[in-house]
Each structure stands twice: as structure tokens, then as C-alpha cells.
């Protein structure tokens, strides 16, 4: 085999190796998410427990590509302090990639029932989700440059009762919704804040709710849709 042929084979191998090392996204067409998307992930938690309990979750991602910047931060924690209490937690957390961005979905139900009401044991916790989206203008879609930031969440400190929350966010539409409901005795707080702006408009909305005492019903639902 001549040296020239050997060199050509070697060059071909090197080129093939370089092609294999290139990210698949580099070959993606215009208008398609061209960098690694949020990974598809989900977690389902189902706990029935008597006694102290602690659950924590922190999640965040930040992506930018194709004229869109997407940020998501989510945190959740729940603690049952020492005592003889019956706790049931059912929790679903999922992140799925969409054409340009991701869809985040969280659904959490906690039931808390101390076996002895004279105990000082409590269920305490909080949940918070942050969304931050920025779109460059798109003349083909006649869409202006838009920025959206929003925070939604709740806090609870219960002697007994149930809390249930559902969070859903979606890019590129920035559709965000949050539902919170509770019944029982103690203190719950919830709310939703969103700020959006484009070249010719600015919108802000903020709501805070705090309920203390013995409550038969706290139902709260909020949604933001840039249409």
C-alpha cells in the first residue's frame, strides 16, 4: 500500500471521528432546537409514614438557543417534626422537552394527621417555581421581542390537614398555571407574580394570600398566558 493511500485512509478516519464527535444539533435545521434540550425526566413519590419525615427537592435549568432563553427553578420541601403523626405524600415531578424549550409539571398532595392533637408536631414546608423566558423578535411569526418572569408557590405550617398543589409551565408559549388548595388548621400562604414586557407594553401582576386558623377551604388558581 502506497504512502498516499495510507494517508488518505488516515485522513478519512480522522474526518469520520470528527463527524462522530460533533453534536447532532449542529446538523439541525433552522427553527429547530439546536442545543441540548432539557432532559426528559420524571419522579413519582408515594409515602405513607408515621413519625418524623423530611422531603427536599431542588431543580433548575437554563437553556438558550434559536432566539429563546429559558430558565426554570423549582424547589420543594416538607418536614414533619418529631411526634406520632400519620403522613401521606404523593408527588409527581416531570420535565419534558418541547420543540423549543420544555414543559415542567409538578403535582403534590400531602395529608397530615397527628394521632394526638395535643402534640406540638407540625407539617411545615414550602414550594416555589420561577420561570424566566426571553424571546427575540421573529418577523416571520410577526412576534415582537418579549420577556416574561414569574414566580408562584406556597408555604404551609399545619397542625393537621391537606395541601395540594399543581404547577405547570410550558415554553415557547410561556403558559404558566398554578393551583393550590388546602383544608385543615394552621397557616397557609400562596401567591403568584408575573412581569412581562415587549417594546410597546409592560404588564405586571402580583397576588399574595395568607390564611391562619381553622379553614374548611382554601382554593387558589392562577394562570398566565401570553396568547
Amino acid at each position: 500500500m502506497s504512502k498516499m493511500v495510507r494517508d488518505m485512509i488516515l485522513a478519512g478516519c480522522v474526518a469520520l471521528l470528527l463527524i462522530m464527535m460533533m453534536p447532532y444539533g449542529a446538523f439541525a435545521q433552522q427553527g429547530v432546537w439546536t442545543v441540548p434540550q432539557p432532559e426528559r425526566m420524571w419522579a413519582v413519590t408515594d409515602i405513607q409514614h408515621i413519625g418524623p419525615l423530611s422531603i427536599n427537592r431542588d431543580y433548575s435549568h437554563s437553556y438558550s438557543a434559536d432566539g429563546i432563553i429559558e430558565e426554570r427553578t423549582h424547589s420543594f420541601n416538607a418536614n414533619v417534626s418529631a411526634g406520632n403523626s400519620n403522613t401521606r405524600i404523593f408527588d409527581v415531578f416531570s420535565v419534558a422537552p418541547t420543540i423549543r424549550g420544555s414543559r415542567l409539571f409538578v403535582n403534590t398532595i400531602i395529608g397530615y394527621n397527628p394521632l394526638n392533637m395535643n402534640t406540638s408536631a407540625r407539617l411545615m414546608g414550602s414550594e416555589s417555581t420561577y420561570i424566566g423566558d426571553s424571546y427575540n423578535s421573529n418577523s416571520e411569526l410577526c412576534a415582537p421581542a418579549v420577556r416574561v418572569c414569574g414566580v408562584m408557590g406556597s408555604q404551609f405550617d399545619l397542625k393537621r390537614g391537606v395541601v395540594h398543589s399543581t404547577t405547570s409551565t410550558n415554553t415557547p408559549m410561556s403558559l404558566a398555571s398554578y393551583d393550590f388548595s388546602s383544608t385543615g388548621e394552621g397557616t397557609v400562604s400562596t401567591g403568584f407574580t408575573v412581569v412581562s414586557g415587549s417594546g410597546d407594553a409592560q404588564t405586571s401582576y402580583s397576588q399574595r394570600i395568607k390564611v391562619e386558623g381553622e379553614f374548611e377551604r382554601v382554593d387558589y388558581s392562577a394562570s398566565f398566558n401570553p396568547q
Partner: protein
Amino acid sequence: MKMSETRKRKSGNIVVMAACILFIMLSLATITQPVSAIPPSEDPFLIKTSTDITCSGSVTESVSFDWAYTNKNLSDNTLTTDERVSQIRYDERTSATDGYIEFKKEFTADGQNTPNLKVDKKIGFLKGDAVTSSLDSTENTGMTIVSEGDTGGGTGVGALCVWAQGACVPPSCEIAVAGSQLKDVTRVNSHTITSVQTSESPRLHHEITAKGAMMGDNRTYGAGTGTVSAGMKVDVREGNNCNNTVHPLGSRLRYSTISTATGQWNSFTKSMTYTSAIPALQIPGQYPLFPWY
């Protein structure tokens, strides 16, 4: 040969017919497509919240909403030729301490459809045993429209109206605010309705109905107790020409009202509405017929 020619002709006819049908369908689709006018903001949005609370204890709730938009550039902080700037605000704060509370509220803010703001709030409160037990609730809404006037005509079918073409709409400033307040209230069944729109036929409306509440095990009626107030302020200025450099004041309208009841009240009702009489382009705003205002 003839058979194959006939087949070819038939298949050709089918292709032509299919093409015709496709063309007609595409044409129809184009004709029936709605004009994509989203006046005047390019950032339409929809915010909806729903709150429903029944509690023996304390409830605090606060809401703040602010929407500002223009048909030009909001960031340049100047009023350019033919520019119109609009702002809708809504703030509410409720604090109910140590009592029995029923609280229901529906909030909708819509950047595309009217009314742009709609709030329906109901509060029921009965004082508890604590000396400090009481309800405070304040609701404010406001609408501001600043217009440099209009000389360039508009868009859409309405703008074809011969009286609208090249119409002179002088510059104007419209400020309308309304609200209501419950203070140191120990017994009430209250209902407020708020609606504001600026993207079509500008209008601001706020009403309150506050009554007593059923109380005790035998559900006897007790009069409302505490202080209830409701009011509105309007300030409108309008120029008298379309000159872009000189703006002589053509008219000024001012209106202010406040009603307050302290003590025991069986019924307190106040309804307040401001509807803009400044036409955008001399086109009367009659559509839609319903809801009837």
C-alpha cells in the same frame, strides 16, 4: 390507443379539478382569515386567578396589577405624533382578623379582549370573640389614556367611513379612578364588581353592595357594622385642534364623589361608571350590542 388516451384525459381532468378545488379552498381560507389586528398592544396576555376561602381565623390577601401600553414605543418616554398611551391599574388589600371569613374572588386581565380587566369579589365576615377582630378591605382601580390626537386615519372597515378619513381628533388626557373600602367592619356581606377597558370604547366601572350578614345558630339577620366607603374621581382634558406643536385646551371635565357610612347599615350600594366620550376616529362605538351597558 383510444382507451389509453381517454384514461389520460380523465386523469388529467381529475388533476385539474383537484387543483381547482385546492385553489378555491386556499382562496376561501385566505378570504375568511380574520384580520390579525390586536389593537393596540403587540404583547397580548391573559391572567386569570380564582380564590375561594372559608376560614375561622385570619385571612390576608393583596393584589397588584399594572398594564401600560402604547401604539408607538413605551420606552422612549415621549409622546410622539399620533401616539396613544394607556394604563390600567388595580390594587386590592384585604385583612380579616380573628373571625369567620368567606372570601371569593375571580380576577381576569385580558390584553386582547374587553373588558381588559374584570374583577368580581365577595367577602362575608363575622366578628370572633377577640376584641381585635375586624375586617379591612380596600379596592382601587384606575384608567389613564393619553393621546396626542389623530390625523392619520385608522385601519379596518370603520376607518373607511368618509367622516373618519383624515379626521381631526384633538389631543386628550383621561384619568378615571374608582374604589371602595371596608374599615373596622365586624359584620358584613359585601360584593364588588370592577371592570375596565381601554383597547375598545374606554370605560371604567366599580360597584359595591354591602349588607349585613346572617349570624348565630338561629341564623338571625344582623345589620352591617363598621365603616363602608365608595367613590370615584374623573379628570378629562381635551385640546381643540390637531396642531402637533400648539395644544390649546378645549375642554376640562372634573368629577369627584365619595360616600361613607359608619355605624350600622342594612344596605350600602354605590355604582360608578365612566365612559369615554372622546371618539378614536369619529366612529361611534356601538359594537357589540351585548353585554348591554
